[in-house]
């Protein structure tokens, strides 16, 4: 049984059919890519999977549970993490605080009475785990700057770290390498590979940088105007003539 199984997802915005009858699955521990031209509906699909948008039709099954109608935070607690294409950082917080609050949210032991007894601060264990993740991502030295002061690349890593702290079974990454230079994006691939090995996290990766996709995933979906036009092992999909035409705009 697949970890994530979405069947027949459709979503309309007024006259635009952003997704039509789309089905896909991701197995536990797998790394899957989702590519397609601008406006293909990739972000919309993420939003539907996570509950930011309610799909018009279709079902999302995650880890054996039907997620229909479930609010975002409960889906997150079941183990779906995500980063955003348009970064959604917590303004006025440092990178470290981002990770700490995510760690606390995962543990869910933030009762009000503990705050009132001044026991709401991070425990040694929490601090240790956050340090480890900062280290993994290589952002320890910028962790105490407010996120407004971070470069785009570091901001994206903070977002990734925040998602990782919740120990997701599935990580939805929306264009994590946009705004990164080549070395940064290579480093990001390295981090993703380690995350996948060490934590057996499944990844669904939306990405325009095909090199990054080829480096990171083993299976690929291609989306165009809300319709899946190809799927299969990466190499095979990349060789597909229809895909090259629709997505890469290459003459065949």
């Amino acid at each position, binding site marked *: 049984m697949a970890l994530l199984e979405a069947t027949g997802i459709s979503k309309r915005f007024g006259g635009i059919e952003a997704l039509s009858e789309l089905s896909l699955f991701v197995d536990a521990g797998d790394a899957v890519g989702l590519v397609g031209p601008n406006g293909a509906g990739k972000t919309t699909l993420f939003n539907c999977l996570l509950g930011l948008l309610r799909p018009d039709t279709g079902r999302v099954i995650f880890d054996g549970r039907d997620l229909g109608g479930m609010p975002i935070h409960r889906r*997150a607690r079941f183990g779906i993490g995500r980063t955003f294409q*348009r970064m959604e950082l917590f303004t006025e917080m440092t990178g470290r605080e981002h990770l700490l609050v995510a760690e606390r949210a995962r543990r869910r032991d933030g009762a009000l009475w503990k705050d009132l007894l001044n026991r709401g601060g991070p425990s040694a264990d929490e601090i240790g785990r956050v340090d480890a993740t900062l280290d993994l991502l290589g952002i320890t030295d910028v962790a105490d700057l407010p996120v407004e002061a971070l470069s785009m690349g570091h901001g994206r890593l903070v977002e990734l770290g925040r998602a990782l702290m919740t120990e997701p079974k599935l990580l939805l990454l929306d264009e994590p390498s946009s705004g990164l230079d080549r070395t940064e994006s290579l480093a990001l691939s390295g981090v993703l590979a380690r995350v996948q090995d060490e934590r057996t996290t499944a990844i669904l990766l939306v990405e325009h940088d095909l090199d990054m996709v080829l480096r990171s995933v083993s299976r690929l979906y291609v989306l165009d105007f809300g319709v899946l036009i190809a799927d299969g092992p990466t190499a095979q999909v990349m060789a597909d003539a229809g895909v090259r035409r629709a997505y890469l705009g290459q003459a065949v």
Partner: protein
Amino acid sequence: MSRFITFAVFGLSYGCVYSLAATGLVLTFRTSGVFNMAFGAQAYGSAAVYYAAVKESHWNRWAGLLLAVVVVGPLLGFALDRVLFRHIRTAPQVVKLITALGLLVGIPSVAQFFFGTDNKPNPPDAFWSSHTFYRFLGSRIDGNQLSIIVTAVAVVVALGLFLRFTSIGLQMRAVVESPRMVQLAGINADRVGTTAWVLSGLIAGLAGVLLAPTHTALVDRDFTLLLVAAMAAAAFGRLISLPLTLLGGLAVGVGQEVLAGYLPLNSVWAKGLRPSFPFLVLVGLLLFLPGLRQRRDTTDPLAACDPPTPALAASHGDPRLRRINRVTALVGIPAIVFLPMLAYHHTWLNVMTLGVVFSTIMLSITALTGLSGQISLCQFSLAGVGAFTAGQLATRYDLSVLWGILIGAAVAAAVGALISLPALRLGGVYLALATLAFALMADNFLFPLHWVGGGQSGVQIPKPVGFSGEWAFFFLSVVVLAICGGIVVLVRKGTTGQYLAALRGSETAAATIGISPARAKFTVFAVSAGIAGAGGALYGSSVTSVNSDQFNFFLSLAFMVLVLTTGVRTVEGAVNAGIAFAVIPFLLDKYASNFNVLVFALFAYGSLTYAKHPEGIVEFQKRRSLAAITRWLDRKQVAPT
């Protein structure tokens, strides 16, 4: 049946005014994104001008109408747009709301400064005389009701034609979707906004002069009721649809009069429920109408262009500054508190005690708005819940007020938690509306009940044993303030505060790491209500007797505005606001008593600075002076070398 028709026709005229007002609200909301809380105040302004012209200066009625409706109304709308609202079109909802609230508090105050605070009986009719009667749908209506119905129909028809057939009307309909998008498409959103505000000002003027003669005297509070009824109608139209809005207005008016007609005359129900009806409708709509959720922020593709709010001054921490700050606090605060005692003796101590008590109530706003960014317009009503609880416990069970403060806080927290339920579903401007609705209902219905507010005579709240001396009570107040301040600081530092900080930064992202927005907001609302309740009980004890008039909803608005302008993110801001709220009226009363009515205008003026300095004006000045001191210190260090 004929009785029903009579009531319904009677209600129809109210309904028409409500519809008119609601149209004005929707118009400006759609074009500038501002939910114009000041609409009722604008209407009152025009009505006051009309009253002064016709009743006091004996102008010709038509000349008065021309001045009040055609000149003052639109001019006020124009000015509001030019001076304020056009500059905050893309600002966060809170900024817009607070600016409008400031006007709601300030405009009547300015009007009273010019036209006097005296009772203004028998407001003049607008068109037809209310002493002549006409037959309408088989019922008798008076001339003023006829004026209302005719005007409303005329305005609606004219507006419909305007929106449909003029190019600026079409543009107005486009701006709604996304002001930023429209501007990209080359439409001048400023021009569209100005037109909407002028039109809405005209409508406010009309509504004002038409509504005034339906009451026996011209009182600004009646116009707040108009605002709530209009809000209910606008919510019914989901703040978008004009036809539904019109229908909603009529329904509220008719429903209100029919209900009032069938309830026994002069019973508590008839007296309380009738003015509460629009609020009940509003709350019902907020709770049950599907599709009221605001998705604007997430769907407007350009919403991310807004600049982030600047950080708190304290976080710019420089250890030298912190030391200076501490020393000034240790020396300065006692100086401010105690030096004037040389001049005013006991009076000053009482003023200071009151200031400390107000600070406690205002801390509840720091807890709520400062931590979660939510706006509540019923904090002083929650204080009232605390005060009446303490009072009833003291009079009936002879319980010490020290217990009263605790239990009052608990009851207020429970009530607050209940009120916050719509916030869990809605948020933003709708939470403001729901809390305002509660404040008004408490004011009109809940607090006048005998078992709550003790009726006419009010409730006695003795000083707790051992704290009856002025100094003892002052220190008790300081201790309560310190405890509540400690709670705010601890919550802010703790998990709840971190969750709320995350939610403020990005609600979506916070939810994707498993934070439940609803639960965090619920918690902070309850904490905040509890602090308000404790402050209220303390307030009751400091004045020794409270009645329903003292917990006027208006004060909730003034408090909110005041705290937001002094600085909502820090405990200090609340203390500044509380002391100011006690000291400024005292000083004005002593030295400039004819400016006393301008107290609220003064506070309202503060709210207008909020758009520029969302961190609060005191906070802003502090940061500025801190920066200056840092520069000075740096220079001094550099100089010797």
